[in-house]
């Protein structure tokens, strides 16, 4: 998979860019869902959104989530539809994947793998970073 939409390294933050960083797991916390909600609203308000999953947050992206084994609504359907809501920059941190032995083949196809230093760049280059 190729990397795309990585913001350029500029000294000034990109006006109108928000990085939403999700580091909490999908089912034990509601933070990730509420983070994605904010990402969707920011995109609707013409902000450029980087949606970044790190640490336990990467489990939101597992592509084998199963309706039968969980009572609540699953997260992957909403995440698969993100590009239709003008969020095309969805990233996952490679160090976190290594930490939990997750391969890219286990994750949603629309996600790009980036390094921790790339994510640092996103945060530095964004107008704001909000953490969930």
């Amino acid at each position, binding site marked *: 998979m190729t990397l795309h939409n990585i913001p350029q390294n500029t000294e000034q*933050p990109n006006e*109108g860019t*928000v990085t939403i*960083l999700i*580091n909490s797991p999908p089912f034990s916390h*509601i*933070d990730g869902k*509420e983070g994605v*909600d*904010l990402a969707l*609203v*920011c995109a*609707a*308000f*013409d*902000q450029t959104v980087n949606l970044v999953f*790190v*640490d336990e947050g990467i489990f939101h992206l597992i592509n084998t989530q199963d309706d039968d084994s969980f009572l609540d609504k699953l997260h992957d359907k909403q995440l698969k539809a993100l590009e239709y809501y003008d969020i095309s920059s969805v990233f996952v*941190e490679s160090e976190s994947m290594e930490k939990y032995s997750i391969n890219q083949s286990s994750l949603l196809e629309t996600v790009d793998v980036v390094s*921790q230093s790339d*994510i*640092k760049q996103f*945060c*530095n280059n964004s*107008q*704001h*970073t*909000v*953490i*969930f």
Partner: protein
Amino acid sequence: MPASFTILVSGSPTQSQAHLSAIRFIHAATRMKHKIKTVFFYQEAVLVASRFNIRPADEFQLTQEWLHLASQHQFELQVCIAASNRRGIVSTEESSQSGLSGDTLEPGFCVTGLGQLAAALAKTSKKDLNFNLEAPQSTPQLATNFQFIQFK
């Protein structure tokens, strides 16, 4: 030059230090003649907007302190409607629309949509300052000229 701050509080009033940190920040900022534009409550933080919170009299009265600060420094206390409704914080209007027997929102707080926060993010400039002690290393901890702050 005085700055104007938009503050996002997302941490729980009982399980995090977010509210206490945010309040201390507002005390310090206003003492230095900076302005607070809006405080936006999202996630567990909305629980502070319940008018049914009863804390023992010798403990810090968080909800009252927010109301006091807001009237003293003339800023709005905005609560996300989706986050608050799913946690039982319901305005009079929402209560009657949903056929509930009563409302729970403290009247000093106003209910808004996430769009208000998105608009504030678009309007405020520069980096945020994050008071989350467990923030991953990839998050900038400090920056100059910030105007938007998250207390998690």
